[in-house]
């Protein structure tokens, strides 16, 4: 059996930009979710402009590693 794909359907459904009001509403929903799921500090980082956001993430990762946090993962032969 070959797995099916909905790929060909997708191109007709995507990228109808939401209105400004809908964008604002989604932004609020997104922010609320990030605070609930990741906590205040990560949520704050996730809503920074790209350059500052990536710098903050890099700092967080480097700090964790410098304190001995192992961010590695096992090689299983199959990607999790």
């Amino acid at each position: 059996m070959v797995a099916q794909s909905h790929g060909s359907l997708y191109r007709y459904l995507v990228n109808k930009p939401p209105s400004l009001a809908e964008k604002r509403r989604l932004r609020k929903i997104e922010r609320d979710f990030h605070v609930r799921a990741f906590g205040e500090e990560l949520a704050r980082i996730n809503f920074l402009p790209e350059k500052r956001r990536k710098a903050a993430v890099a700092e967080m990762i480097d700090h964790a590693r410098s304190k001995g946090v192992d961010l590695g993962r096992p090689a299983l032969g199959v990607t999790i």
Partner: protein
Amino acid sequence: MERLIPYAELEAFFTGLVRTAQSRGITCAITSGMACVHFGVAATTKDCDVLCAVGQAEEFRALVAETELRGLRPNYRGNISPPLDARWMRGGWTAHFTWKTEPEEYCLDVFGTAPRASSVWEQELHDLYASRHTVAEMKLTNRPKDWPYVTALGIKLLGMGDVRGCLHLYSAETLLKTVRSQPIPAWMFEIRPTLELARTGDDQLAAAIHAEQVFWSHLDACRIRVYEQSLRPYVNAVRKAIAHRPISLAESHAIRIECAERHLVKSPLVAHGFDQLVQAARAETAKFAHPSLMEWLPKATVHFTGIL
């Protein structure tokens, strides 16, 4: 003690690798944690996952082999990695590479098919990265820590006007707030029936979403078990052939091909059967979920795209 390589340098290294590959005509994209960081969902990672078109595995392997990190060339990671070869990539195997710098090593996982994908990842790339949709589907794992990323990427998709975002919302509150303003096509209800519960505001929604997560978790665990069972004879053969000798990536690759040809099933999931896998995951979920929730589980057979 030598210093760790800063994340910014690692990110530049891996994006540089993918940029060079793309400039050579290789279809490939960064996915998983580094893609999440790029898309605005902070993840703690130092390694990189890359999707590479199956038919271009050889060219990508040649590029990896010549790519130095702080003056070091990579090798396969341990005995367990299958060879980066189209025959096994088509079956969903992942090749693991490592640059063994001190004091940390840095890893690259390369795969040809995106696990749990319902669409063809090559059809939708964002520069150096896989699409948010693909990355979200790849995060439907048996690790609870991955689930917030799925929802976060789903909201991002909706913000871009991509209604598929609703497929990725695993927070009842978030789904309820968004689904009614989205023009959801029939096929999405087919592959994710819980959208109907969200549309009607049914009280069962939160429990049904939890059951979905249990189901995906079991599906992933079943999938990994199938691969692990197939891997054992191959790993033993590679271990015996390499026998702790320091060898180059090219030598290691040749050994792995020889061992894989004799011992590694090319596509264990196809041999096992997608339907059987889904049924096993449903059976495991049924031990936990209330019977009334079973009808809302996803039709996961569409989530094996590309595996041949």
